[in-house]
């Protein structure tokens, strides 16, 4: 049940069943590190899909947040670059060390062998899960729940507290929402009733008088008008936020000079004092909205793509230095090896009239693959 298909662009094949053949750790590690290495390197890794051989998981969002904070605190581009490259280099050293260990027949970390970790302080602060250097020290978890935090995951005991019902597991009647895959009917008594506390404590009561955190959840508003009316007369608000009905496309979003009034308002400094009670919606821009709306694709009109990307800026090779707006500086480093340019997915489209109710004449051309 294994079909290789990874060679194709955007390879979508290669389904692997859960019962893979037994793995040879050395082969697996070497193959993974050579041929199956992801673009994102700051990751844990397990050759056997069980315990990790490499730890130190860091996600792109954590790196981004760290670097945003550092940049705001004045760290220079070169330092930010060095952090990033150093972290990647450290991970690559870990990969090589793991390959050596596997080749040498040593016990891998996932098999109880010695951990493999290349020390990189900037990376370690992120992977350790502690607060970034520019933030506050990590506080103790509040509201510590029942029992201690789970260390290593314990295997689920068969027929544990959520054992299967006599009637068999859910899965045969996908259209029956009342059944639960966990063996008990969903929607049991009490859910939906606001006073019931599923965690077994006292029933949740709304606080008397004013709540600490402001108003309780708003009563449901009519779905047709979720945005209501602005409280302050003349405020930007909803209903007529931008001063004029939406216009047909008037011009490019991109290519507009900076500083053009925006329907979302200019960036504002944080409001002094409490934000409660101060509408944050910006004042409407005077005149017609400068941003064109999309073409009428849904109504069957031709999809005229907005001109503009590149219209206002000179064509530049990727990574050419450019004047930086406030914030991050454009870096001269060109991209490393990446995909060859050009679109051309392997998938075909349906160029006969679809039976879909909203079906409009497809306006996009066939993919290149169909044009030979």
């Amino acid at each position, binding site marked *: 049940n294994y079909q290789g298909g990874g060679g194709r662009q955007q390879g979508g094949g290669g389904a692997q069943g859960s019962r893979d053949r037994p793995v040879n750790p050395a082969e697996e590690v070497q193959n993974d590190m050579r041929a199956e290495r992801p673009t994102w390197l700051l990751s*844990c890794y397990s050759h056997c899909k069980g315990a990790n051989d490499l730890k130190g998981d860091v996600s792109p969002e954590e790196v981004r947040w760290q670097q945003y904070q550092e940049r705001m605190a004045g760290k220079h581009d070169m330092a930010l670059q060095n952090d990033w490259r150093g972290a990647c280099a450290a991970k690559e050293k870990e990969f090589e060390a793991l390959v050596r260990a596997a080749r040498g027949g040593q016990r891998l970390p996932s098999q109880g062998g010695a951990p493999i970790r290349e020390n990189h302080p900037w990376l370690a602060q992120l992977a350790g899960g502690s607060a970034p250097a520019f933030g506050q020290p990590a506080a103790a978890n509040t509201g510590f729940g029942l029992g201690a935090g789970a260390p290593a995951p314990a295997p*689920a005991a068969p027929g544990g507290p959520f054992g299967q019902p006599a009637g068999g597991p859910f899965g045969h009647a996908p259209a029956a929402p009342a059944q639960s895959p966990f063996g008990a009917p969903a929607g049991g008594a009490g859910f939906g009733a606001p006073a019931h506390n599923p965690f077994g404590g006292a029933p949740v009561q709304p606080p008397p008088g004013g709540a600490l955190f402001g108003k309780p959840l708003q009563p449901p508003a009519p779905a047709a008008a979720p945005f209501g009316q602005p409280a302050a007369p003349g405020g930007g608000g909803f209903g007529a936020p931008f001063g004029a009905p939406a216009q047909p496309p008037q011009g490019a979003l991109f290519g507009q000079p900076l500083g053009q009034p925006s329907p979302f308002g200019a960036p504002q400094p944080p409001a002094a004092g409490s934000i409660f009670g101060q509408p944050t919606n910006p004042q409407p821009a005077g005149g017609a909205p400068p941003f064109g709306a999309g073409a009428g694709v849904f109504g069957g009109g031709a999809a005229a793509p907005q001109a503009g990307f590149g219209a206002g800026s000179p064509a530049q090779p990727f990574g050419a230095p450019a004047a930086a707006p406030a914030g991050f500086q454009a870096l001269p480093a060109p991209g490393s090896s990446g995909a060859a340019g050009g679109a051309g997915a392997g998938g075909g489209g349906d160029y006969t009239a679809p039976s879909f109710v909203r079906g409009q004449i497809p306006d996009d051309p066939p993919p290149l693959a169909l044009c030979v």
Partner: protein
Amino acid sequence: MFGAAAQKPSYNPNGDVEVSVPQDLDGVSSLGFSPTANFLCASSWNNSVYVWDIQQTGQTVPKAQNKDHQQPVLCTAWKQDGSAIFTGGCDKTVRMWNLGSNQSQQVAAHDAPVRHCFYVPTMNMLITGSWDKTIRFWDCRQPSPVHTQTMSERIYAMDVNYPLAVVGTADRNLTVYDLTKPQAPFKTIQSQLKWQTRCVSCFPDKTGYLVGSIEGRVAVQHVDDAVANTKNFTFKCHRDGNDIYAVNSICFHPGFGTFATAGSDGTYNFWDKDSKQRLKAQNKCQYGQQPAPIPCAAFNRDGSLYAYAVSYDWSRGYSEYNPQVMKNTILIHAVKEDEVKAKPKAATGVGGRK
């Protein structure tokens, strides 16, 4: 038809509708449609959350903006009646933004950035997941969580389809919750993928979930162990030659039980896990010659629209960040039936080929 193609910008090679976004938009971290209307919300690394009205004509009308978070916003969740949006992010809080009054208030807090938040109408609760390694349950009327569950590691991925909830943490742990018994996890297992967990998505029928990782692969997992042993599998995706990209988003179509993936390679694809086929591959979004990543995506409530962001997702770190070239945009694809309708098994039995 072909003449029009020549004008398609490289970041929108599929000719999808472009949302009119503000000039100061930074990377888009989450997208979500209202459960009751075609209002689309987006959160951004510029600290703002936005709402547009996506009209039938294809016009995208800006409706609202909230800047009460003073730091990047990472996640959003609509309240079931469409009246409010929960927003969470790097300021370690979650706020509830009431669209009628256009005011927001803090309803939850963690000790580190909040990565995911979900509103669960059956429980009338907010569930939040954070890099502080906890998930917390809130009834939003009290400043303290009703329950806090400490996980083994930072929360990276999460999805809820009551009563199923799945949490993916750093170091490849996956925790499954039965929300009818939320005091403790149902089970915790290791991911069937070898590298960092990136996203999870619960099946519409709640019998299992999909896991996406950084290694251009998706795992199909079933909750019931007996079913899992025979029906779990993984498949490769979001690869281009030797380059292997992260799967950033997996969304099930609300009607057909098929799903869409989107990745750092700048593509989005439609799949059918039951026949193990790819239904449609879309053209690759690019910034010049480089892939333009898709960090997040969402179907609307009836599955007629698929919104996706095209913006740098930091998948190549700081070195590759070039804001002059990497414009941030949100595109909306008018879904075609043949892209999302389940198909009978192909003759080969395993798909990916068109």
